[in-house]
């Protein structure tokens, strides 16, 4: 069928007079890492909300794995293989790190209406959870209560939970948000290591990460996709330069010019 794993067709969402998503037709090819960039207020959050099912578009369709998922609820999309990590840390604060991931692992099964066995003693849940924690660099802190972890550890946990459901596609919403230099490098390495196994839609501000990871980049400004292509194409795209250099509180212009 389509070469696109996730596709939007003329998506539109307006809040009163503010058109947050303006005729967005975006296609993510199977296996690629696709970055979505844009200045603050461009409408990335609204778009992500529609992709994950938390916001209903006013018009347009979304298809995933060949199916029209526009009317599907968030949980159903997750079950189809679309996993996400949140921009603002969204974990289960009272659970341990391992339990956080274990719960995501548990979601792989068709349902969880099992009332008897102690979930913390089911090896089929705990072992994959421990492995995932190792993979994202949280191997030693599985027992730590999530609410007590540092911000950087939260970002790692976010990623771990997204991976835990055995998804087909990852929607990563600013995984680098709030990370220091060391942590950013570690996260970047982590993302590079999983890149090949999943199709990824990456929303990021950190241009280093974007240019090093992304196969293709789309630029969202004022609710519209103004450009879409490879890193080089985007770097030299006149509209993109205007959109960014015209924005005062973004040093993207400098990033665009930096030697890579």
């Amino acid at each position, binding site marked *: 069928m389509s070469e696109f794993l996730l596709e939007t067709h003329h998506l539109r969402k307006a809040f009163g007079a503010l058109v947050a998503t303006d005729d967005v037709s975006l296609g993510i090819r199977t296996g690629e890492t696709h970055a979505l960039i844009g200045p603050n207020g461009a409408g990335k959050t609204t778009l992500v909300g529609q992709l994950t099912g938390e916001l209903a578009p006013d018009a347009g369709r979304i298809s995933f794995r060949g199916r029209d998922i526009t009317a599907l609820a968030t949980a159903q999309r997750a079950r189809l293989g679309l996993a996400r990590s949140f921009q603002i840390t969204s974990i*289960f604060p*009272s659970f341990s790190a391992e339990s956080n991931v274990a719960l995501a692992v548990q979601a792989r099964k068709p349902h969880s209406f099992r009332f008897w066995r102690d979930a913390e003693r089911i090896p089929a849940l705990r072992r994959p959870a421990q492995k995932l924690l190792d993979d994202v660099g949280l191997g030693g802190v599985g027992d730590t209560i999530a609410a007590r972890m540092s911000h950087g550890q939260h970002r790692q946990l976010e990623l771990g939970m997204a991976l835990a459901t055995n998804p087909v596609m990852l929607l990563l919403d600013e995984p680098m948000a709030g990370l220091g230099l060391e942590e950013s490098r570690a996260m970047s390495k982590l993302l590079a290591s999983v890149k090949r196994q999943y199709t990824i839609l990456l929303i990021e501000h950190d241009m280093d990460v974007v240019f090093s990871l992304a196969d293709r980049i789309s630029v969202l400004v004022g609710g519209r996709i103004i450009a879409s292509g490879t890193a080089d194409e985007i770097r030299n795209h006149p509209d993109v330069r205007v959109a960014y250099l015209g924005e005062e509180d973004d040093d993207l212009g400098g990033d665009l010019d930096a030697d890579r």
Partner: protein
Amino acid sequence: MAYLGRRGLLLLLLLGAAIALPPYFGVYHTRFATQIAIYGMAALSVDLLLGYTGLITFGQAALFGVGAYAAGMLTVYGVTNAFVAWPLAILVSMLFALAIGSLSLRTRGFQFIMVTLAFAQMVYYFAQSLRNWGGDDGFTVPQRNHLGFVSLADHTTFYYVVLALLVLVVLLSQRIVKSEFGMVIRGIRDNERRAAAVGFPPYPYKLVVFVIAGGIAGLAGALMANHAKFVSPAGLSWQLSGELLAMVILGSANSLIGPILGAAFFLAFRDVLSDFTEHWMLFFGPLLVARVLLMKEGIWGLLVRATGAEGKPAPPKVDFPVASGAVAKSNPGAGR
């Protein structure tokens, strides 16, 4: 398996007292202890929803009352065997819970509170309108149910039966809460948005726990009908729903044992103060306000800390229902 740390010992102590002391009580105190156990069970059902799922229900009294009415009516009709009447009462309350829950759970947050209150009120009016069953005055139940060949007319016997059922409910609830199902509802409590994003549709899970809690409340109601040999709409009032919530919070939510202690506290408070004044509510109201505004934990939480029985460091108090998507408490950007 039992985690017999200090907390387990504390529980055993309480259980031991509950088992060993009553033979020394007179009728009055035995009945008092029975009442604590019954309300404790009802409050526990509220905690399953509140502490473990993050659902604030102001309508649990409706399910408690439905259980009472069902058991009472069955007894009046001659179904006096507890092995028949009590499961039926549980079933009826679960059906009511299914009906109320299926509609209420479509709403969230404040709306949910108001909707559960409203539906409970509807059941209350329905009970009041049952002219054949005494209307607003209620009706007396001619006798207690009997457990097969065991008569429950004796107060001490009845107490131990109620206690055994309470212990059973606690153990079953413990299992449920720790099971995979329990993980999902606790996940929903912590962060419903995240639970959905991981692949758990919240509604079916919330509905199931709502029905389970309804069944437990119904059992408590059936026991109450037996205890008092009297059933009336007062057992369905929203005031009782609020009192159940108060018991949970006084005793410590999210603990299953806390609500029982909260029930004990509430009933003891009422009992002791009404010896001095009929207006004991005048003091209870502000006490509740004080607990909410000034104290961080309830009785069980205090007990656990006081005896150093914490074991693993307790998880930080989760401000539930947690704002969708955010760990931090105030986060205007998160959510919609």
